[in-house]
């Protein structure tokens, strides 16, 4: 790769590590992206269909070649079906992750998960209450068992409405009922999407897209919400805590262990094993000063939010972290783990371990974690990592870490506000804070790494918009120094005043990708406090560098919940102007919100500011001209 590394990433650790990777002849995601160019235009436009074996088919967007698949499906149907399947895959990924947590909860209740416990019994009881489970005078394990069972029922087909949709404002639920998109069962909606998109079933592109909304809602108000809440019950509800970010969190004189993936079920056990005095003593015996655990991507976000564990990087940094030569062991669970990592690690002493029964990777050793063996397995693996320290070659850790603050759960945000959302509402009413925006999602080599997230966040806080972040976006802004209290110096005067008084950063780290639901819950709390609907609030969402199917599900449940959402990269839908029109305009009439696409974050910021000012005006608040 001879190009200027500045075109790939804005981060200095990224640029320096790319140079190192180059001299070590490590292939990176950017290189593979360039090797893929040009990418297939039919697929980019959503115009290729592989659903059945009369195909594959493709539609000529210029109108002269074939306009129908073998079955007769036209561009609108094919684009809508493809998008529907992306939503289904994304919802399935989050929701299955949620199910794994519910299974741990059930095992904890039965006493069959040594090492795991109920860390937040208050939250357990609160949520059990929402599920109408008797809590008075009952033992914690009994409540946990009943809650796990009741949550499993949310996955099935026995309900008309998911339990936790009750948290959404009544007006919002009415909109869902009226549009016929109220989610009924988490697995049911995904399963129904796969049915509808089978050849010869739902060939109404509008009804397909509506079901796509329902499928996404089953994630946002179902699978992801359960994942987030059960994680809090098991591992503790996040509270603001200081931490460090970027590749500089790796230590030259310590055993470095990295956890990568999404599910805290594995990383929490590794976290505990890393505190074991015997293992720390062993590390010292091997000449290391200690054991340094750091995270990547969302499982890193989970540990960061709950324990202040440092974060080495986000999605596009995962190969480069290995290229430091400083990582003794990387443990992965599932989602967003590039299958290239095993190959990268083979050039260094890094041991790669896959841990989930449903995720295998080339060049990794498979050591399966189950609730009953996790504690023991974590001890064994951390020991092996410590033993690996002796095999370390030359290391290159080119930067110093950046300070950041993480762990703003809804409880923590309201806590910082003094117990109620009232002060935030007052600040919005007074116009000091214009509104709030969520910046979420992944990295994608199509957008300069971190440029989308960081530029958008900078522009928004400059315009007095409070920013909340999750996932890889949250790591990007953390690395740029925006998740620290000192970052108020980049904020507009109103936001600076409020955040300064509350001693919070202008960009709040709310957790991992499943934790996007925390943003929905916060928005619902604001809407409920104002007696209005989410779509009336001066808020917006954005995924400036998204790549994954999960991001499609997230963006869709945001819009279906009434949040205007701006995407960076274009989803594969340009093959149908009808679909584009419905998603960018038509949905306004159904859910009170719509999508926009704008890869340039400076322009995306303008779109969001304009939207927020318009919503302020509609609420009768002062509104700035842009």
């Amino acid at each position: 790769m001879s190009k200027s590394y500045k075109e790939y990433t804005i981060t200095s650790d990224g640029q320096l590590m790319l140079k190192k990777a180059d001299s070590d002849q490590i292939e990176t995601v950017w290189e593979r992206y360039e090797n893929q160019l040009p990418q297939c235009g039919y697929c980019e436009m959503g115009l290729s269909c592989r659903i059945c074996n009369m195909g594959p088919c493709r539609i000529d967007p210029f109108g002269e070649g074939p306009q129908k698949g073998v079955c007769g499906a036209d561009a609108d149907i094919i684009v809508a079906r493809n998008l529907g399947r992306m939503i289904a895959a994304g919802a399935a990924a989050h929701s299955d992750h949620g199910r794994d947590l519910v299974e741990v909860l059930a095992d904890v209740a039965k006493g069959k998960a040594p090492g795991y416990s109920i860390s937040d019994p208050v939250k357990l009881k609160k949520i059990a209450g929402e599920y109408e489970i008797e809590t008075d005078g009952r033992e914690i394990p009994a409540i946990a068992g009943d809650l796990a069972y009741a949550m499993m029922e949310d996955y099935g087909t026995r309900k008309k409405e998911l339990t936790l949709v009750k948290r959404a404002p009544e007006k919002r639920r009415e909109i869902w009922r009226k549009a016929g998109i109220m989610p009924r069962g988490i697995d049911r909606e995904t399963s129904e999407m796969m049915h509808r998109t089978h050849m010869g079933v739902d060939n109404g592109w509008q009804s397909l897209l509506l079901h796509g909304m329902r499928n996404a809602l089953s994630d946002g108000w179902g699978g992801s919400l359960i994942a987030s809440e059960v994680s809090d019950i098991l591992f503790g509800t996040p509270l603001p805590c200081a931490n460090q970010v970027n590749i500089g969190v790796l230590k030259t004189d310590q055993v470095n262990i990295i956890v990568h993936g999404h599910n805290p079920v594995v990383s929490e056990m590794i976290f505990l094993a890393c505190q074991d005095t015997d293992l720390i003593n062993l590390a010292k015996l091997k000449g290391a000063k200690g054991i340094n655990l750091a995270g990547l991507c969302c499982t890193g976000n989970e540990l960061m939010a709950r324990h202040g564990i440092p974060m080495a990087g986000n999605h596009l940094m995962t190969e480069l972290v290995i290229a430091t030569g400083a990582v003794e062991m990387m443990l992965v669970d599932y989602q967003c783990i590039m299958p290239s990592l095993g190959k990268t690690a083979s050039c260094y002493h890094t041991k790669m371990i896959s841990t989930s029964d449903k995720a295998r990777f080339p060049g990794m050793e498979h050591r399966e974690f189950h609730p009953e063996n996790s504690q023991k397995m974590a001890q064994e693996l951390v020991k092996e990592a410590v033993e690996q320290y002796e095999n370390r070659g030359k290391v290159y850790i080119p930067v110093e870490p950046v300070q950041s603050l993480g762990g703003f759960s809804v409880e923590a945000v309201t806590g910082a506000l003094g117990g109620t959302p009232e002060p935030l509402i007052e600040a919005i009413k007074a116009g000091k804070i214009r509104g709030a925006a969520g910046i979420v999602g992944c990295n994608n080599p199509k957008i300069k790494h971190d440029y989308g997230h960081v530029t958008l966040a900078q522009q928004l806080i400059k315009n007095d918009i409070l920013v909340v972040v999750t996932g890889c976006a949250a790591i990007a802004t953390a690395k740029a120094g925006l998740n620290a209290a000192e970052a108020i110096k980049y904020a507009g005067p109103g936001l600076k005043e409020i955040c300064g008084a509350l001693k919070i950063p202008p960009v709040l780290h709310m957790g991992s990708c499943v934790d996007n639901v925390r943003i929905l819950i916060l928005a619902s709390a604001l809407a409920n406090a104002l007696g209005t609907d989410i779509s009336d609030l001066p808020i917006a969402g954005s995924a400036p560098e998204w790549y994954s199917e999960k991001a499609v599900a997230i963006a869709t449940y945001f819009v279906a919940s009434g949040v205007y959402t701006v995407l960076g990269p274009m989803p594969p839908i340009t093959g149908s102007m009808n679909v584009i029109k419905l998603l960018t305009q038509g949905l306004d009439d159904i859910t009170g919100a719509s999508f926009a696409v704008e890869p340039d974050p400076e322009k995306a910021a303008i779109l969001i500011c304009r939207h927020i000012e318009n919503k302020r005006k509609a609420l009768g608040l002062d509104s700035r001209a842009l």
Partner: protein
Amino acid sequence: MKQVVVHPEYCLGCMQCMTACAIAHSQTHSLFYAVLEDPVPKSRIHVGAGLFGEGFPNRCRHCDPAPCMTACLSGAISRIPETNTVYIDPDKCINCASCSMVCPFGVIRYHKDISAISGKITAVKCDNCHERQIQGQIPACVEACKSNALTFEEPSEAMKRKTNKTACTMSSETMKIPAASGFDLLNAVKKVQAEIKTC
């Protein structure tokens, strides 16, 4: 005489032409078995990526006069008049790379090919699907391209269409019809993505 005409503005970068070309120049003529052949058949058309990752099908222009033919010292390159094909005879090719040095389009590759005696590396490029044409078939790449970025027609026909299209762009604003609005939109997004890389 009908020729392959390239219309890059319609190229979707799907590379189906490449697959079809390779299969047309395989022993088995089957997608499933061709990949198992030795040598593995290779395409003679190469889809490149433009400034923002858009596709461009690059194939031999069968120039006249052809620089490659002039440069070839061993007399391996000649023209087949029936199909107006600049043809490389693999038996005469001495693998000296003179032709590829002078080819302005970089379409000549060097590798093993079933047309050459076993194991010999030879200069390979588009042969206009000469054999298919003799059998009354159109070139494989054209057959594969569903967006009409490649057409097989009288060049004068293609030029006439292009002239009319250009004339339309001179018509008043209200008359302009985009080739495909979705494709324009996709390219607009890809252009911005490329631009912000240099920010």
